[in-house]
């Protein structure tokens, strides 16, 4: 589904990524973990098209997308959320989520200016789709008309997930979906992520620091440390790996 091959990325002298290779298997949840500064977010930015890698290839459904711009990758079905919520703060929840439907809509400028006719039909269909598939699903119907700024952090995270879901993505990339959340909120978010996988069959790539959650919901885990891929495998394999334990806890004295 999403395949990374020998990805290298550097900023000046800093080697952010050095030869990362893994595959996010269709319909599965793949986790990317590693200590702070390991290159997880750089990896995400390279996959979504904000950074151009020095070397290596990103394949999406077998197609090389390394040279495509972020918006082209989105059109192919690659969605993501950000570590520090990147919602549109001037808009309501509903408008934010509607923006997720952007690539699926066809309305052109002429139709938009007139509204009545094609644009209206499409807007109403989008509204229905979003209400039924996203807002009900994420249980955010009580806040749909709220401006983003009025929402607490946990709900903002959920709205951002909703916006990504509105894209009907094939691959969903979540950058620290439960960062800064308490246990209950984390459990809620984990449940939503599992529901997405189960109901929509979406391939999910996840960066997270919450080890409990990662070990619980991921079927495959990639571990990064200082830009290098030090391990990859099932949760059980990874948690028993010497290098991983050393990276997280330091070498045994």
């Amino acid at each position: 589904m999403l395949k990374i091959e020998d990805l290298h990325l550097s900023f000046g002298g800093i080697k952010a990524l050095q030869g990362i290779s893994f595959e996010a298997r269709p319909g599965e949840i793949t986790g990317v973990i590693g200590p702070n500064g390991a290159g997880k977010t750089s990896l995400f930015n390279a996959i979504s098209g904000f950074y151009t890698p020095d070397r290596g290839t990103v394949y999406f459904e077998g197609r090389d997308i390394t040279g495509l711009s972020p918006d082209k990758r989105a059109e192919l079905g690659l969605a993501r959320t950000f570590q520090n919520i990147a919602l549109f703060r001037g808009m309501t929840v509903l408008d934010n989520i509607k923006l997720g439907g952007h690539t699926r809509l066809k309305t052109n400028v002429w139709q938009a200016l007139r509204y009545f006719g094609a644009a209206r039909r499409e807007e109403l269909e989008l509204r229905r789709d979003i209400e039924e598939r996203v807002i009900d699903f994420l249980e955010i119907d009580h806040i749909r008309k709220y401006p983003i700024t009025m929402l607490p952090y946990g709900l903002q995270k959920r709205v951002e997930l909703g916006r990504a879901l509105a894209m009907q993505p094939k691959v969903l990339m979540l950058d620290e979906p439960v960062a800064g959340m308490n246990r209950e909120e984390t459990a809620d978010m984990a449940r939503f992520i599992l529901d997405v996988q189960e109901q929509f069959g979406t391939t999910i790539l996840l960066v997270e620091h919450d080890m409990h959650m990662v070990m619980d919901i991921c079927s495959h885990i990639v571990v990064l440390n200082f830009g290098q891929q030090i391990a990859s495998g099932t949760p059980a394999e990874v948690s028993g790996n010497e290098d991983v334990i050393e990276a997280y806890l330091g070498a045994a004295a």
Partner: protein
Amino acid sequence: MINGNLKASYAADERVLNNSYKQLFVYGMMAVLACFATFANDYMILIACKMGILLIAVVGVNILTGYTGLISLGHAAFVAIGAYGVTILDNVLMGVVPEGLMFFVIVPLAVAITAIIGIFVGLPSLRVKGLYLAVATLAANFIVIFLIEQDLFAPWTGGMVGVNTPSPNLLGWVLDTNREMFILIAIIAFASLLAAQNLIRTRVGRAFIAIRDRDYSAEILGISLLRYKLTSFALSAAFCGLAGAMFAYFYARILPEQFELDLSLELVAALIVGGMGRTMGPVFGVILIVMMPEVIKVVFAYFTGGDASAARYTAPLQEIAFGLLLVFFLLKEPLGINQITDRILRAANRWPFARG
């Protein structure tokens, strides 16, 4: 208090005038305008026409600055291109296009030309933002005025001394009085507002707002910054071109100096005062910006007892008031008059149960 806010369908919930206060306001305003066209005196009609023309242009600036978040200090150039476009096209196509159809041919043509030039002026926006973009667009304003004033183009533009403009002929109906022009301008201004409102409730307008609020997030949703920034420039220029066309039709003669930086600043000021990124913002802003000098003139004349020697102080007073007004809004109500009306509307909705 408002009742009946329950919506039973998505269509009802997606309506713009989604409560009875808004409906009352808009339909009421239309009735007022219709009465106005019939009963107002000539001077009031003149002021209202000025407002209408300015409104169409500010709607354009709102699309670019209010919704897309790109600042322009060169929009007077687009008004100029629209005005000169209509005038020149009218002269060139005289005899080729039947007189009754001229309006319907040259106005869309002039607007289209303005939109295309708008795309070129917008090209720097792909690289620079904020203040730098403002300066880049400012340059466009100077270049356009400079070109209009050149002797080379004087046979068409009239150069520094300006050029006489045509009167619109709508299928044989020649609009040669201000009252007739008012009807035309009011209809076009209303249509412009409606078009802008429609734009922002569909994917194109949402994409603009997304770019304003967070451009990288917009990209990740599949919005091409290149395409939508230039679309925004084109649309914004098109509305200003339309305003320019009305400007040319309304006045008997146009001069390059009418489209200088002053006008660009007035457009931005009206938008800030009225409320950026809101549909009704331009309306409130334009009413205030156009009415204020008139009110000052009347009040000043009243206190000086119509003394002619004191009248020379009117113009500087108007400019001082203009500056103070801008500073006041930037400090006290940065979201403009629209924010005040929103508060009133909210209070009316809740009355008599809660305030605020």
